[in-house]
């Protein structure tokens, strides 16, 4: 399976860090600074594992997840956010996020989650 990840965050240093971390693990990383860029990337590329920041200018991460899940239901979407309440977590589940990670993220846990996402997609699409 093509191990491509889309990472969406309005903070460029975070995009660069995650690109560095996941490139070393053998993933191909595509970055987007906002929701508009992310949707544009998804139109042109088949990417099934996505990490979204929640607080972004313009369309926020929750609205973006709702849109992604509607257009591309066979995707695994994780929230990677700087702050969330318990109510916020349930809202995230409601809009379709498959998991929620809090910054600063535990890199090993996040790597495992990305690996798990690809394993899951392989099982779904295995014939």
């Amino acid at each position: 399976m093509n191990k491509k990840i889309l990472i969406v965050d309005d903070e460029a240093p975070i995009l660069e860090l995650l690109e560095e971390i996941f490139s070393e693990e053998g993933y191909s990383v595509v970055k987007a600074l906002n929701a508009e860029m992310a949707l544009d990337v998804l139109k042109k590329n088949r990417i099934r594992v996505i990490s979204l920041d929640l607080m972004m200018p313009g369309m926020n991460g929750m609205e973006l997840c709702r849109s992604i899940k509607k257009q591309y239901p066979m995707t695994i979407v994780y929230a990677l956010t700087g702050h969330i309440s318990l109510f916020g977590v349930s809202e995230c589940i409601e809009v379709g996020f498959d998991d929620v990670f809090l910054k600063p993220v535990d890199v090993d846990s996040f790597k495992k989650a990305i690996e798990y996402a690809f394993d899951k997609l392989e099982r779904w699409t295995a014939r």
Partner: protein
Amino acid sequence: MTVLDIDSIDDIVWCPLFDTVSDLVSLHSSDGSVLNVNKAFADFFGKSPDAWVGEKCFNLFRRAGTIISDCPIHRMLLADKKNVNMELEIGEKIFDEAASPVRNRNNEVIGCIHILRDITVHKQIEKAREETERLKTVVEMAGGISHDINQPLTVFSGYMDLLQRKLPEENEKLHDYLVKMKDEIERMKEISKKLANVTRYRATDYPGSEKIFDLDESSKA
């Protein structure tokens, strides 16, 4: 300005209707002495209405031995000659205190009607509302700060991990520096977590008679 069809304060007929109101009502002569009180007044202060006649207002309401400048009755009688309103605390109760002039047919101020309205509950609600507002502000601010700190902390922590993995193991000194730096990053993460979990406002003493926000107490479950 209401003028009564009387000459002196002694001509006033005390109205029984005053006994039906919950406000504490008292009638005073021009030197502040009590002439009459209603039932609510008598019940609150624990003596029959007759027992109050002749009492000086400054003794009764402010436990002062003499006229004091912030007494609304004397302010009204001696200077303003019109309604005076202020707040008065008696024990645990807070009252809205009003002193209104009684004028005779010649428009001379001959005495005063003094009314105490219990606003204790209203004040408690106001205080609770202010506390809630303040707490809401503190929680929102703490959450916002936590969110903003977590962004650079993510980058800092992530590159520290990468550095630690890429640094040759033989370089013990540099690894040691990295461990120390990582320990402090973990501390910063804990601080940020506490900020995100603030549920109350507590302050602690700081040298120099200042107070500062106590994050540990404010974020305790």
